[in-house]
């Protein structure tokens, strides 16, 4: 059970006079990220006056605070008192199923990847949609989900020259990671496999502008171009078309 990637005690890194970076483990690792999620929850529940915002990432929490109300030492002591954070019993987790139209105009790198990996596009789609992914963090842009759990057969280095613009709602892979982009065009050095009608971010969907959060599980489901069009029309009205399943662990 012991995972060397987990630190015995957190490593504190100063990020100016208004933030503290708390590093809980090494590298991109599901156990390390789970500890980030658990510490995020535990610290959020403490609701310390003076903590302004907490940003969970792969292996760190960025704790932003008001230095006039709270000192860095206070926060470090608080975290040590909560250490090691544990997930509450009966915790609810979420598993999303995200429909994807693979290849063609939706996934401009699928053919290239098949050549590069000396396989078929069907095989890539099958492997990409068979895996269960973990949302490690949301970052880079609104609702952009970084996913771990990509089939090792699909690990391909990023492009040497990033593209300046890639399509909104792209589903992509880069190195050992996968991603779902929000409905915004963005620069990227990753490989574009397809697009989803799901809007991971939609500020007009005021009750739930963001769908995914760190610790969620996620799968992809291949869909046709026709189904993509139908689902996209539904998404335009504000419907959440990603399927969501909640379960207790």
């Amino acid at each position, binding site marked *: 059970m012991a995972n060397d990637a987990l630190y015995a005690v957190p490593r504190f890194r100063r990020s100016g006079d208004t*933030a503290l970076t708390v590093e809980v483990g090494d590298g991109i690792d599901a156990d390390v990220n789970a500890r980030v999620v658990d510490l995020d929850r535990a610290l959020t529940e403490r609701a310390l006056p003076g903590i302004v915002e907490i940003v969970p990432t792969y292996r760190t929490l960025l704790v932003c605070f008001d230095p006039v109300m709270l000192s860095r030492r206070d926060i470090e002591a608080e975290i040590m008192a909560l250490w090691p954070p544990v997930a509450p019993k009966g915790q609810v987790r979420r598993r999303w199923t995200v429909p994807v139209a693979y290849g063609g105009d939706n996934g401009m790198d699928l053919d290239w990847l098949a050549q590069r990996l000396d396989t078929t596009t069907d095989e890539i789609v099958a492997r990409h949609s068979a895996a269960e992914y973990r949302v490690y963090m*949301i970052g880079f842009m609104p609702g952009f989900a970084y996913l771990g759990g990509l089939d090792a057969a699909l690990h391909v280095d990023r492009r040497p020259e990033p593209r300046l613009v890639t399509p909104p709602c792209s589903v992509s892979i880069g190195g050992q990671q996968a991603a779902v982009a929000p409905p915004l065009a963005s620069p990227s050095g990753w490989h574009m496999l397809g697009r989803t009608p799901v809007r991971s971010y939609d500020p007009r969907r005021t009750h739930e502008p963001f769908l995914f959060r760190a610790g969620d599980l996620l799968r992809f489901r291949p869909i046709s171009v026709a189904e993509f069009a139908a689902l996209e029309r539904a998404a335009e009205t504000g419907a959440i078309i990603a399927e969501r399943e909640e379960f207790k662990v």
Partner: protein
Amino acid sequence: MSVDLEIVEPGLATTLQDLGRRGFQRFGISASGVMDPIALATANALVGNKLETAALEITLAGPTLTCAGADIRFALAGADFAVAIDGRPVSSHETHDLKAGQRLSIGTARDGARAVLAVSGGFQVAPMLGSVSTHSRSQLGGLDGGALRAGDRLPLAVPGLPARPHLMVSPAHRRRAQGAVRVLLGPQDDAFSAEGIATFFASDYTVTALSDRMGCRLEGPRVQHAGAVGIVSDGTVFGSIQIPGNGQPIILLADRQTTGGYPKIATVISADLPRLAQLRPGERVRFQAIEEDAAIQLARDMRERIRRIDASLVEIQRTAVPTSDHLLACNLIDGVISAFD
């Protein structure tokens, strides 16, 4: 029908900003918000608004504006810009009344880079995710998620002139801070060689023209990494100084990406963030490491300065139509009053 401030010419990068979005960085939403919070507080205090009221942030070259439906009172604070009403120059850093149909032209910045234009009563714009701050990359805030464009109309919350005296910023409070930008080392100073850190603190860096609200890109002696250039991406703050593979520092600003994969050698102290807003392309900066306790004291001092912002303002007497004689008179008054500071 609303009474609107109309954008005749938008200027280089004019955006609606308040203090930005808090609590959404975990969802990839940049805080955004005004680059120079002291300028926002000052401009709002001049026109009698709450200090955090949303206002227009103006960069290097300003907009031309008009309001057909009402007289409005406005003030500019922050960088010193050329300002004119119907072509007649007026002073920055003080309140003026713009009569219905007159044109307000903000020219270029004479010193510094960014000013805030506040209008008495503020604007009637619906917040998105708790703020009206514009973040173009997320298409959030402002009127339609972007910088203001010609023909845009900003509805005024309280059209008309307030019943309060005209005010100006006392000259002592207009000066730009000089000297090195102060930082705390970290969070990833261990990703740099001793030589790299020494270079970083011993060198002048020039602000490049590629700088914007996302980041201030600097050019100068290369800062050497100790080993790998990449880190596992983590969260960023306003003031994080990241060093990509080319060794050229980038100071992350209000519109920065929420996470980044380059090591961050140091972080600008919160009290020096307003100074970053005023850096002009071509200007040189140098960094100085200070102690954490000193940074916190400076943060307290800045908080106190904003809390007591009214103390930096002085009343001015003005006839209905300012004349050059009158402007000279204002300067005389200004000299006398500053003697009491």
